[in-house]
Each structure stands twice: as C-alpha cells, then as structure tokens.
C-alpha cells in the first residue's frame, strides 16, 4: 500500500446544523488517482473544498475532525493557507475563468507567486495549455477574453491554470463534464500521466471514467463513506449492496 498523502480523520461538516459530511475517514494514497463517486448532493464537492480549506470561512459552517497533508494538520492555526492552495490545485465543477485574456488566466497563479520573467511565463503557459489539450485551439488567440471560449474550452483552460503552478495534489471536480469524447480521453490521458508526480483526487459522475483512470475509489453516500477499495474490485465485485446499486444504476 502506497503511503497516504492526505489523511482524513473523523471529518464532519454541517451547514447551519445540516449534516453534510458525516465522520469521514479516508486516506488518499500518494501518486495515485483516487476517484470519489456518489449521487448528486452527497457531499463530494464539499469534501474537496475541505481539503483546500474553502469551507471554513463560510458562515454557519462547522467543521470537526482532522485533515493532514504530508502528516501535517492543515486546520491548525499556524498552517499557511496560501501555501496550502499552492500545494493543492483545484479545478471546480463549474469552470470559473477570470474575465481576462486566456494567457493571463493561465499565468495568474505564477504571477501571484512572484514569477516575473516573461519567457518563463510563456513556457509555463504553453506547457500547461498543451497538457490540458487546449494549445492547438487557442495558440493564435492567447489575448482573447477567456469568457468567449466554449464551455468545454473553459473547462480545459481552468485545468491548464491549475497545472501551471505545479501543485503536488490536484483535485478535479467533474473535469470532463462538458467535453467531447476526444478531449475527455486527452484529459484522462493527462491524469494518468500526471500521477507520476501528482496525487490526484477526481470527482466524476461518469462511472466508466472512474473505472478507467482511477486506482482507488471511494463511494460517498449521504455524507458518509460507504465503501473504499481498489477500483478494479469496486467495479467488478463491490462488497456493499448500496455501492452495487449505485454503479449498476439500480433503484436503492
């Protein structure tokens, strides 16, 4: 078993007394792809946001339990949240490009980190746009406003933006929901490539995408972890009936 990059221990979260995450225990192995699956509203995005500390400032949000990255508790007072965001790249479910040029979107994070050398920024922009399978489509219009891109192009743009700062954990929330089959396969190829150097957490509603690209799968049901295991076991012979019903498309 590969060592855990992220350890989630007894994590519970409530929004205004509504229990959204319930006693989550989960280890995310380093340099592997972990898929998080579960019905709409079960808490997948919320769990990802906890790993990036995007929930704790929300009003009426209560978080209990611990999340450790590289054995360090990210919720302790002294933890540097800017550093955390740099380490943990996140691609949101709804693409959120900034209303600036394509180029500025991609290099935004690097600039924030103080990178100023133009050739360095150019290189990084091209590399991440290529990785996200977007370069060929936008290379001649890098100064165009990012909001004019199609939905699927925006999705790849925000992936490029996350990759540009070279985080070591990458969280992808439905990264291919608006992509055509070819772009989807390219993103899946990218995910497989990136796991050499990154730890990847993937939320997807596409069961076969989870089966194709992930090593481990965690099934979340109404804020609880119902089953975790090797992806190949979960998709051929799950232990829990709830998992079976979900992945085979049966009424619970």
């Amino acid at each position, binding site marked *: 078993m590969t060592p855990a990059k992220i350890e989630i221990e007894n994590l519970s979260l409530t929004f205004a007394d509504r229990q959204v995450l319930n006693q989550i225990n989960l280890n995310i192995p380093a340099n592997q792809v972990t898929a998080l699956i579960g019905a709409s509203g079960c808490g997948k995005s919320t769990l990802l946001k906890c790993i990036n500390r995007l929930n704790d400032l929300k009003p009426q949000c209560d978080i209990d339990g611990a999340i450790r990255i590289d054995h360090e508790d990210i919720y302790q007072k002294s933890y540097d949240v800017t550093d955390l965001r740099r380490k943990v790249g996140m691609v949101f479910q709804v693409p959120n490009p900034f209303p600036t040029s394509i180029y500025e979107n991609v290099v935004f994070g690097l600039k924030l980190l103080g990178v100023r050398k133009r050739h360095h920024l150019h290189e990084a922009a091209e590399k991440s746009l290529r990785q996200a399978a977007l370069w060929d489509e936008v290379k001649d219009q890098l100064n165009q406003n990012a909001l004019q891109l199609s939905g699927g192009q925006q999705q790849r743009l925000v992936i490029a933006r996350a990759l540009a700062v070279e985080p070591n954990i990458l969280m992808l929330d439905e990264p291919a929901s608006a992509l055509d089959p070819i772009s989807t396969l390219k993103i899946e190829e990218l995910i497989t490539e990136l796991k050499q150097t990154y730890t990847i957490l993937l939320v997807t509603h596409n069961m076969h995408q989870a089966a194709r690209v992930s090593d481990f799968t965690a099934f979340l049901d109404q804020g609880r972890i119902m089953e975790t295991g090797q992806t190949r076991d979960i998709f051929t*012979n799950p232990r829990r009936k709830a998992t079976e019903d979900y992945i085979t*498309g*049966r*009424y619970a």
Partner: protein
Amino acid sequence: MHDAMEGFSRHISQQFNHELEGIRTEMLAMGGIVERQVHDAITALTKNDIQLAEESKRLDQQTNQMELSIDDQCTKMIAIRQPTASDLRLIVSISRSVSDLERIGDEASRICKHAIDIYNSGENPKGYHEARHIGALVSGMINDVLTAFARRDLAMAYRVAKQDIRVDTEYRTAMRTLVTYMMEDPASISGVLNVMWVLRSLERIGDHARNLAEHLIYQVSGTDVRHQTLKSIKQTLRDDSPDDEDDLNPNSE
C-alpha cells in the same frame, strides 16, 4: 447478493432489465435444446436409432445459431450499457456459458456420427453398457447445472463440478474395459473404437458441464474458480461440510 435475480428488474433502465432477462432466458432455452441433443445422441447410439441420430444432428445447427445470437447480444450490451459489477459478471458468464453449451452440442453431434457409422457397418459392438452409464451421469450434470443456473444455486453448481471427478474416474475404468474387449476379440476393434470415441465425447461433455458450473459460481460470487481444485472452490463458497474422497482428490482440478 443472492437477491440479484429479482435485481434484474431493479435497474432504473427498464430496457436494460428486459435485455438482461432476455439473454438469461435464451441461454436457458439453449441449454434445454443442448440437453436434448445429448439425451437423443445416447439413445440413438444405444438403440441403433439412425433417424434420431439425424434429428439430433439437425438440432446442432439451431444451437450454433443461438450461440451466435446470444453472444452478439452480450457484445452489444457491453458496448451500449457498459455494465459493471453483477451485471457485468452475468453477461460475461452467459457469454462463456453459451460457448460451452455449443461445444456440448458439437460433442453430441459427434456421438451421432459414430452411431451412424456403427449402424452402417452393421456391427453390434460391446461397450454400450459403459456408454449408457456415463451418458446418464453427464446428462444428469447438464440437467443439474441448468437448474442451478435457473435458481442461482451455488451448492448445486458445486455438486456438478464434483460429479465431473466421478465421470473422469468412470471414463478411465470404461476405457480399460473397452481395451480388454478389443484384445479379446480383434475383429471387434473398429466397432469398439467407435464406442471409445463416444466415451471420449461424453467425458468432454462432463468437462463442459463443470465449466458451466464454474461460470455460475463466478457470476454469483464474483470469484473466478476456473482451474482451481474442488477444495479451493469449496472454500470460495464457504461450504464447511466435511470433505469426502472427491473433495480431497488431488487431481480434481
């Protein structure tokens, strides 16, 4: 997960429920025809009924067609539905099973061909007793394994796998007996050789019936027990009844 049979009707997609139920029904129907092929082939041989032999051979075309059709439906379902978990195992199990059933049908046709050869040669060779005996054993195996499929009964599937050991033993004994017949009466050699081929086919039918039992065990339990000893299959099924001689047979793979 023994409720997965009724589970066919629990998919949100009604069409998928119908498709799964459909291939399962067709496979059992094919099994019924194959069972009859084997039964008729043995009767044709032992009763010298050449007409029955011809009829049984004609059934083989029907089961060949069914194999192609069911397998084609399995392939389409895999492409279109991308099944997982128990659905995937059901489809894989059916696709494997129709191939074993088709080969049982082929062996039955071979038996018919030998029955016709014997009839045409005008001989009345020894060895029918052995053929009838082993024939009854393997017919019983096919019947039981199809019942096990219909009921998803793993204990019954296990008994079928076990019965194959008995068939193998009886087959070796019978072959020895037949060799003795040939040595005692060299004039009978060509006739007895035909019966030997029949026994060989029956023994293979037993192997295919065991394969079918293993496909069912995979379908229901999720464990692929092909090429395993009976003892480890028994462990897979968490059957803790006391072992008998066959369970412990080291050649039981």
